[in-house]
Every structure is written in structure tokens, then in C-alpha cells.
């Protein structure tokens, strides 16, 4: 098992209803698989999934990326700063 920390921002945080959680996930889990697992736990995230951005250790990460142990994962909508 790998231990990870998850951070939620903006609309994603509002939908999930949490700011951050820690969880254990199977080794070799991909970002795509993690997304599916999260939608299982937070069904309200489903409608955000087409546009959610995910990061691993503060770098943008894509579906096929494998989540390493002790990763800091973030989920958020396209950015709108400025």
C-alpha cells in the first residue's frame, strides 16, 4: 500500500466538502484509477471530472501517471488567477 495526501481546491473542494484527506492506496495505482476511486467516495465530484486538473507533488499529472508513495496529490478546476 502507498500512503498519500489529497488536497482539494475551489469548486472541487466545495463539491467534495473537504479540504484535505490522507489515505492508503494500492501500489502502482494510476491517476486514472485514483480518480475513479475518488468519484466512488465523493459522488459529487463526478460532474467535475471532465475538467478536473490533478497534480502529483506539485506537477501536473495525467491519467497514465503512477502515484508514488507519500505523494501530495491535488485536485482542482482550471486555474483562474490574475
Amino acid at each position, binding site marked *: 500500500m502507498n500512503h498519500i495526501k489529497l488536497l482539494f481546491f475551489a*469548486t472541487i473542494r466545495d463539491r467534495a466538502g473537504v479540504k484535505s484527506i490522507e489515505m492508503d492506496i494500492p501500489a502502482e495505482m494510476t491517476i486514472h484509477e485514483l480518480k475513479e476511486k475518488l468519484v466512488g467516495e465523493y459522488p459529487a465530484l463526478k460532474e467535475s471530472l471532465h*475538467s478536473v486538473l490533478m497534480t502529483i507533488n506539485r506537477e501536473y499529472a495525467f491519467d497514465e501517471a503512477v502515484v508514488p508513495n507519500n505523494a501530495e496529490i491535488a485536485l482542482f478546476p482550471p486555474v*483562474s488567477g490574475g
Partner: protein
Amino acid sequence: MQPANLPTIFSVTEDEIDLNDLLAKITLTSTGAAAIFTGMVRGETSRGDAHVTDYLEYEAYIPMAEEKMKQVADEIRAKWPIVEGIAVVQRIGRLYPKTPTTLIACTAAHRDTGVFDAARYGIDRLKEIVPIWKKEIGPDGSEWVEGDYIPKPGE
């Protein structure tokens, strides 16, 4: 060509943006020109859905935002090696109309060196890859402002 000590400022802050101070910090003895962009909270927007804004609430994924601001500065230096100092600042928290919320400033020896384009590129990239979001609060309620850029692998 590029001394290692060129000043690069990147910061997510709750404090007022002080243009005088930031400009001084990115001005070298060889600097003759600065192009500075600031974004402000609009209290009235007429483009698109015309509306009134009471205030904006900004939030950031701060450590990543500062890393991505550094990346924006690195991209600017790669494209415009003549740029001397760079400042990339985002203010967060509750910000009212007419308040500067963001600043991108680039300095160079001369104004015809691309320094205006460099600042323009900086604000465009900030709005693409730096993890900051804003919620707009107006007379009809609140709404997150949604960006539309999807970063590509390696960004």
C-alpha cells in the same frame, strides 16, 4: 550572457502589492526600462454577461503556485534572454474593486528588447498554469470563476 544573480521575485501574498518596492527590487544598474502589468478587481464588467462585483475571494495552492511562478519566470528568461529582473506576484484573500490583485514586471536595458512582450507573456501564463482561483461575490450571490486552460504534460 545571463549573470546568475538576476533578481526573480515570485510570491503569493495577502499583503498590498507595492509597485514602487517591487520595481526597485528588479532594477539593476544596467536597467533602463520596465514593463509592468497589474490586474485589478473590476466592480463593473460590461464584456459578456454584464454584471456588478462586490468583491473577489482568491485562494491558491500556495507552494505549487510559487513553483509555477518560478517556472513562468524561467520561461520568460528562455524566450527573452535580455530580461534582467522579473517579479510575479499574486495577492489572495478578499479583494475589493479597484484593488491590484496581480503584478508581472520585467526589466531590461532598453524598451525595444521585447520587455513588453515578456510581461504580456507572463500574465498570460500565470492565468494558464499557476494554481490560483477566484470566487466572485455580487448582489446575486457567489460564483467561482472558471478558467479554461488544460495544462499539457511537462507544463
